[in-house]
């Protein structure tokens, strides 16, 4: 199938499903849930580029999510800026921090890299908690303005859904293009063998830094959207556990699989919601799922589902 045709079909279907859901779903609760799936997908697909394709692990990705939310939050609450004006600031801030932090950290390899990102994530979270005057401290920053264009409110209901999923679809498109390009090949090469990639001329340090910044900017976008939809942010949403959940979404969904991010994000967003019924047992079930999927489906659910499908086709 020619790529253009395939793209039209796939993205057309994607847009169609989102549009249909937004127009037909009447419950604000389920609309918001679907919007959250979108936010997490945005986070997961960026992290997947870093972890799945380039092979670098980050245990502090929630920090960039938080940076996007807090930079925009502080500018709108303390300085009264319009949220749209703060969007480039939030993205730039996250990108700049990712650049500065990435320079020394990405030189590390293996477990050291994981630990470096973990340390960075913890420090950012502590900053959110301690700089009370700016961030509101542990109890959070309330009163963020909603997103509006003229008289249209984009922070509620179907409009929010369309905005977020619009960003997700754009992100998917961009990521697919990157993966199938010279840069994407270079990133994948780094994953398979960093020293061979260098030996054939890939500037591995720059490539890793570039994808790290890219993932951070996507996360900051998600943070911005989250902040102005919930209009309240607190450090607890951007802690180590949040970073772990993001890693889990990528790993469980399937590494190096853009659509796997969708699966992983959906699963791990909808699951806790479903588990709220068992509110006491939420952690137990969540922990069990993480363990069981990783023990038995280490390639990620997406890949395993694909394999099952292919095996079923043969029969």
């Amino acid at each position, binding site marked *: 199938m020619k790529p253009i045709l395939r793209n039209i079909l796939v993205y057309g279907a994607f847009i169609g499903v989102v549009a249909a859901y937004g127009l037909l779903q009447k419950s604000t609760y389920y609309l918001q849930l679907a919007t959250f799936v979108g936010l997490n997908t945005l986070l997961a697909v960026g992290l997947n580029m870093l972890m799945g394709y380039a092979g670098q692990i980050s245990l502090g990705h929630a920090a960039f999510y938080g940076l996007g939310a807090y930079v925009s939050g502080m500018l709108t609450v303390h300085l009264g800026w319009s949220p749209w004006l703060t969007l480039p600031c939030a993205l730039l801030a996250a990108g700049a921090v990712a650049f500065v932090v990435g320079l020394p950290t990405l030189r590390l390899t293996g477990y050291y890299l994981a*630990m470096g990102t973990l340390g960075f994530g913890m420090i950012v979270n502590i900053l959110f908690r301690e700089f009370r005057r700016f961030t509101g401290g542990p109890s959070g920053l309330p009163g963020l303005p909603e997103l509006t264009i003229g008289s249209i409110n984009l922070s509620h209901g179907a409009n929010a859904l369309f905005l977020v999923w619009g960003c997700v679809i754009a992100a998917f498109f961009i990521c697919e293009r990157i993966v199938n390009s010279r840069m994407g090949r270079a990133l994948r090469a780094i994953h398979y063998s960093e020293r061979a990639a260098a030996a054939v001329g890939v500037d591995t340090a720059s490539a890793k830094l570039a994808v790290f910044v890219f993932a951070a900017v996507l996360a900051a976008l998600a943070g911005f959207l989250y902040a102005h939809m919930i209009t309240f942010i607190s450090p607890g949403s951007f802690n180590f556990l949040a970073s772990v959940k993001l890693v889990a979404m990528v790993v469980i969904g399937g590494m190096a699989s853009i659509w796997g991010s969708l699966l992983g994000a959906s699963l791990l967003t909808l699951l806790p919601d479903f588990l709220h019924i068992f509110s006491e047992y939420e952690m*137990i079930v969540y922990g069990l799922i993480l363990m069981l999927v990783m023990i038995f489906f280490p390639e990620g659910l997406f890949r395993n589902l694909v394999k099952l499908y292919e095996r079923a086709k043969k029969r």
Partner: protein
Amino acid sequence: MPEFYQYLFSGLTNGAIYAIIALGFSMLFAATDLINFAHGEFVMLGALILVTLWPVMGLPLPLAFVLAVLATGILGIVFERLAIRTVKKPEPIVLVIITVGAGIFLRGVAMIIWGKTAKGAPPFSSMPPIELAGAYLLAQSVWILGIVLATVLAMHFFYKKTLTGKAMSACAINKRAASLLGIATQMMTLLAFAVSAALGGMAGVIIAPITMNEYEMGAILGLKGFCAAMLGGLGNSWGAVVGGFALGIAEAMAVGYVSSSMKDAVAFLLLLLILYVRPTGILGGKAVTRF
């Protein structure tokens, strides 16, 4: 000047805790190349089990102590059997998620069993604080320091003088060679998990009297203990001790002389510092080549 000693004592006490938690991380990593993100939960379980056995059920302290440590050790064995041995693809990233998931699971279990309210425990001995150089040293701190030092010496003896200990060291250095020499490497892995978990449990037991014990306490302790292990050199037992005390004292001094909001940040700042400057840690650890 007395504040300096106060900070020092506080730093030494916390340092000892970090040291023993770090020791659990380090020796497990040395033996199995695995970083157990659920280690903090073993600390938490040790503390909560002690609280149940001793003040609540009224068992004599030494018995409660031993039972709590044994229980966490056994839990370590169960963990290894169920969650680690069964893994189809033991890649580091997969194992990281598994241990993190295990940590969350254990936290959830603890919440069900012990609820959300924090529990206290009385100190091991009812002596009043000792005055030293114008500062006060809690009796419990003396217990902590003493037990940690005794444990470290016992571990050193174990590794250097006993056959099992030497076998475990051999596995840590080169698993293939060790197994060719007839060492049951799978047994050694199991033992490493048991000992590591027991060390975590012991850490919990000895801090129970001076902390608010509840299901979330393991999270930050585990992370800080890990930072201490990295500081001293991951995989190096003495490094864990050095790292633990270094972190404890640095933390206490930062809180005392700079600001208390810095407390948690110190551990992670030191972690980043050591990673950038000397990833193998102060004393040099086992080379981390995986991933």
